[in-house]
């Protein structure tokens, strides 16, 4: 009998216990209760635009294939042959009519169905049950604005609609930076990083207003001088938000109209107004934000950031660059240049973040100093009519937010 951990005590409202970042047992609980039983980001539809397209990814430690079948249905299946455990798909992405396991030749359809086996006569009557031997499918797959989420082992206790309710307006805004409301994910480059510490440090760190003027002083200086970042951006409605169910947001700024015209070329603004209407276009263009969709996705200005735990103390982070459909070339090129400026492994921002995350991995080895603090601004939070909590952007509302859902799922999981 393993002892059940007290997650209310380990993940408190204002602090988390260091064992959440170090303990193999906590990690196993997280896999079982969060990564296999709640909404996990797997792909964006633009990554698999045509029938037969697939990409492989991971839900927690589990390798999965996201496929688009002939009839344009999206499927998520576990990349594990039901015969003897071999991964049936050896590539990151591609197009195929079916998956044929190269060990003994079992063939599976895009929805996982077992279609054929090699040398079937070697099986006697009753030895091979096609129906039960398909690739294991995720229990639930749904998407919102092309963003595909799946739940692997059980149907989540909340609908995707409910899960995203508090942050949908920001997802919509992200897409509507395109004049036609559509983006293409990953075609224009994917940064592939890793660091030697727990995955939650990147979840917390994707909406970090407090570190920016310290860690990124030199990068912000260049962005202000050369990239149209307003020098007094902190005066423009910056805030942190807890959007519910672990989702949270760092609003970097929300510009007045004059500043929008400084930030973006007039032709782009005109096109946006033509397609979206003036009010909607200006509303979208005013904003810059980092949005975490708990646990493994963050939407930042020019990227889908995907967080992949690889054990308790190693994390892969992929940044899928995003392009705006039907936006002027100039705008998309600017998204390319500004993204690589900050986030590539040789860039002016990202490497400094990963240096900090590595150092967090080092410091947190000191288990006798138990607490990671998130209490900044806890006494001055405000709540809106939807129950969303707000704090200053350099306070820690965004870092506290994931742990409301964390506690809920970790305790829920212990009951099943």
């Amino acid at each position, binding site marked *: 009998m393993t002892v059940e951990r007290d997650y209310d005590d380990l993940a408190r409202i204002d602090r988390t216990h260091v064992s959440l970042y170090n303990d193999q047992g906590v990690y196993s609980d997280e896999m079982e209760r969060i990564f296999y039983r709640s909404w996990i980001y797997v792909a964006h539809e633009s990554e698999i635009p045509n029938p037969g397209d697939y990409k492989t990814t991971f839900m927690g430690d589990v390798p999965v294939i996201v496929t688009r079948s002939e009839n344009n249905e999206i499927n998520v299946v576990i990349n594990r042959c039901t015969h003897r455990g071999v991964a049936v798909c050896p590539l990151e992405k591609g197009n195929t009519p079916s998956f044929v396991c190269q060990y003994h030749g079992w063939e599976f359809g895009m929805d996982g169905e077992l279609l054929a086996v090699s040398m079937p006569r070697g099986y006697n009557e009753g030895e091979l049950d096609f129906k039960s031997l398909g690739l294991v499918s995720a229990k639930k797959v749904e998407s919102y604005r092309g963003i595909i989420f799946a739940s692997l082992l059980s149907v989540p206790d909340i609908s995707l609609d409910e899960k995203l309710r508090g942050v949908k307006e920001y997802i919509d805004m992200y897409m509507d930076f395109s004049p036609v409301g559509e983006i293409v994910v990953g075609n224009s480059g*994917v940064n592939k*990083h890793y660091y030697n510490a727990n995955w939650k440090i990147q979840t917390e760190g994707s909406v970090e207003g407090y570190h920016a003027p310290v860690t990124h002083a030199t990068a912000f200086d260049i962005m202000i001088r050369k990239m149209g970042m307003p020098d007094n951006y902190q005066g423009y409605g910056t805030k942190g938000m807890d959007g519910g169910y672990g989702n949270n947001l760092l609003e970097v700024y929300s510009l007045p109209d004059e500043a929008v015209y400084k930030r973006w070329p007039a032709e782009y603004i005109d096109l946006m107004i033509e397609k979206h209407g003036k009010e909607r276009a200006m509303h979208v263009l005013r904003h810059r934000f980092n949005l975490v969709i708990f646990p493994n996705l963050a939407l930042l200005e020019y990227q889908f950031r995907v967080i992949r735990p690889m054990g308790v103390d190693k994390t892969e982070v992929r940044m899928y660059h995003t392009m705006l459909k039907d936006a002027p070339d100039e705008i998309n090129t600017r998204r390319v240049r500004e993204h690589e400026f900050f986030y590539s*492994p040789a860039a002016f921002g990202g*490497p400094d973040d990963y*240096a*900090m995350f590595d150092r967090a991995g080092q410091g947190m080895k000191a288990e006798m100093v138990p607490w990671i603090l998130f209490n900044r601004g806890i006494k001055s939070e405000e709540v809106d009519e939807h129950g969303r909590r707000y704090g200053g952007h350099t306070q820690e509302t965004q870092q506290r937010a994931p742990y409301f859902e964390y506690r809920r799922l970790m305790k829920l999981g212990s009951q099943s």
Partner: protein
Amino acid sequence: MSANNSEQMTRAEAEDFLFAEACLLDQGEVNEWRKLFTADALYWLPYSRDVNVDPTKHVSIIYDDMEMLDERIKRLQSGACHAQIPGSRTQHSVNNVRVKTVDGVVIIDSYLTLHEYRANRQDRFYPLQTMAANCEHKLVKQDGEWKMTSKKVVLLNCDGEIYDLSFLI
């Protein structure tokens, strides 16, 4: 650039240039290294092995004009580039050098083997990193000196998982 087919470079001269460049980088003579570029030069590390990749439509690891390279160098020297605390030691080994001249521009193709190490890290045991790349240097002569109009470094694993490249390559 006016077509001037008179400018030629032998392989030995090309090697001398690349060895000298490597030496400046490895000895931390960054300001001297910077002077090897022309004012309109490009310092480029693509994310893709595709020779036709369009840098306006695809993210690069580095895509610096000289203004941005100056910012990069200034930042590296400021002590506020935290990924470079402690800083990297590098050793650039250059080989498989080939030279050609196209429209008055000398193009040197070479292989680069790069070793990188960081001493004095609190966590100790920083593993010696080894990187491999194909380089393309484009050179013109200005006032009797060879200058780079472009330096392109294509890592063998440019589209793979990369830990950190916060040093100059």
